[in-house]
């Protein structure tokens, strides 16, 4: 990896260089009841909209690589058959400006599932290959537990990662493209004092994470506590609404629907992201539902994230961004659920 330092007021120059592409970044979508800003990722059309000091976004970046609804192919129906058109729905390179480490780690995890196996997902891959990613250091929030999941820093999966040193940005360069862009700015190699400052900033950030999840032996504990009563307590609270999966940066389960147009001349196949908490997630042909109870569905969500995926990939499918808990109207949060399954923490239900 190469490193460079550039003055903070040069950031707009980097933005301008990249602005020939689509730019997606964090922006303010409104204020909540307490007057606090609500951030989300969206297309940015003006550098002034970009809120690099954002806390956390409501939704993850997922919709740009794995849209909630996506047409996979369309058909022209003819008398003697059909003609199929496939479109991966990736038309232009997009710059993702200002991702936190957790969200970049989330993309790396999605890659393992969607591009790393025998049958890569071309729709995902097409969008993923067209990304230019600029990471920025985050401000730990009271609900972030990425430190527990080992995702509070990121080693790959980005082109450029910026750390705010106060008056300058410390840039980690991870691609030749990024190197070319950064060299067109007024920049220099970091001095020894800036190496020091970079490490200090990282340490200081680490010390500010307050929320934790004890992942010690978690896969075993989840097996041991498969019948635990606490699952039922959480199940009684769960709305089975799928919000957690929708805001999750790593939930990728989907269903496919086929529809014929009214004119009976065209048809289409659409992928809908689904959620394991929805009532009919485990309903199979013939009508049998393997998980009609909400506590079972909720439990299996945790089993997939914190047990099944760990067994398959040696890492959890959770990056500890805390979005699910923040969005859950019933206040079901990962740290509380896992603590209760471990027999810790008292009044959760």
């Amino acid at each position, binding site marked *: 990896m190469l490193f460079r330092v550039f003055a903070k007021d040069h950031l707009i120059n980097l933005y301008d260089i990249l602005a020939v592409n689509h730019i997606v970044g964090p922006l303010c979508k409104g204020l909540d*009841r307490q007057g606090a800003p609500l951030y989300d990722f969206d297309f940015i059309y003006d550098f002034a909209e970009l809120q690099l000091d954002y806390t956390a976004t409501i939704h993850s970046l997922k919709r740009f690589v794995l849209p909630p609804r996506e047409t996979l192919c369309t058909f022209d129906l003819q*008398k003697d058959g059909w003609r199929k058109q496939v479109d991966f729905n990736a038309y232009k390179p997009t710059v993702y400006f200002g991702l936190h480490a957790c969200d970049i780690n989330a993309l790396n995890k999605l890659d393992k599932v969607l591009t790393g196996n025998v049958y890569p997902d071309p729709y995902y891959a097409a969008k993923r290959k067209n990304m230019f990613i600029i990471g920025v250091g985050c401000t730990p929030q009271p609900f972030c537990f990425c430190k527990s999941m080992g995702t509070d820093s990121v080693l790959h999966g980005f082109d450029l990662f910026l750390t705010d040193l106060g008056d300058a940005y410390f840039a980690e360069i991870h691609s030749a493209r990024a190197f070319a862009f950064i060299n067109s700015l007024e920049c220099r190699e970091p001095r020894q004092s800036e190496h020091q400052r970079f490490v200090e900033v990282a340490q200081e950030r680490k010390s500010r994470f307050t929320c934790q999840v004890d992942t010690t032996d978690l896969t075993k504990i989840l097996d041991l506590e498969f019948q635990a009563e606490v699952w039922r307590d959480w199940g009684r609270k769960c*709305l*089975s*609404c*799928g919000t957690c999966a929708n*805001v999750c940066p790593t939930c990728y389960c989907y269903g496919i629907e086929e529809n014929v147009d009214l004119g009976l001349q065209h048809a289409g196949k659409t992928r809908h992201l689904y959620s394991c908490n929805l009532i009919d997630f485990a309903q199979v042909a013939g009508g049998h539902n393997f998980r009609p109870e909400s506590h079972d569905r909720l439990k299996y969500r945790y089993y997939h994230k914190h047990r099944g995926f760990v067994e398959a990939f040696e890492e959890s499918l959770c990056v500890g961004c805390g979005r699910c808990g923040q969005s859950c109207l*019933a206040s079901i949060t990962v740290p509380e659920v896992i603590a209760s399954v471990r027999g810790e923490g008292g009044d959760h239900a």
Partner: protein
Amino acid sequence: MTARERTYLGVPVSKPRAAFFEFTSCEGCQLQLLNNEATLLDFLSLLTIVNFREAMTEASDEYDIAFVEGSITRDDEAKQLKAIRGRAKTLVAVGSCACFGGVNQLKNRFNDLAWVKEQVYGSHAIDTREAVPLSAIVPVDLSIYGCPIKKEEVERVVTNLVLGKSIDYPRYPVCMECKANHNVCLFDLGEPCLGPVTRAGCDSWCPSNRFGCWGCRGPAEAANVRQLRQIMHEHGFSDEQLLDRLECFGGFADYVTELKRAAKE
């Protein structure tokens, strides 16, 4: 291609004879059907429409599918509905009134129906009774939810009916579609919403326009109204505010009874 030659993958497709009827309602759902001009001709060419008072003059009593809008609030309506049921192979309840009683069933809340009639009609009394959904009078084969119905959903249902495909609805709540539309949760903006318990399929029509859900499509298949009540309280909304919404279209009737009992305790 003329409508007579309509085929699907080379296989001729029959055009079922369809009739549209309305009982106590605003007829807005039927208007919805006529509203989407871009697809109207295709829609009309899938069916042979033999009875549609809002759209045509001719009328026939021979039909395969009856689309029925409105709730039943008079004895003569019940009689008419039974006759329709007798003629139709498939009876489709269209809209919240037909499915749940709709806004009309709000009058059922009053204990003294005679007083209600007096207030509404004065000396011109009309012989009405409690508003009930179609299913209280006759068996219903299919329900198309919503106030008003969503034209896209009707088109999908009708296409699948004609092609003999299975017809399925979302069983999950509106939140699922609202999140897919990247909305900010209305509770975060200080607005009550029935999205977490209401059946989806509307593509979060109201919440996407920053208007909290009133539950016109009735309950989702796993509606946790007990939890929603707690959420409403936590966000500073009263049981009355929750009940107002739950009672509005009649879909949550069973939950309302339970909630009223709980609210008394």
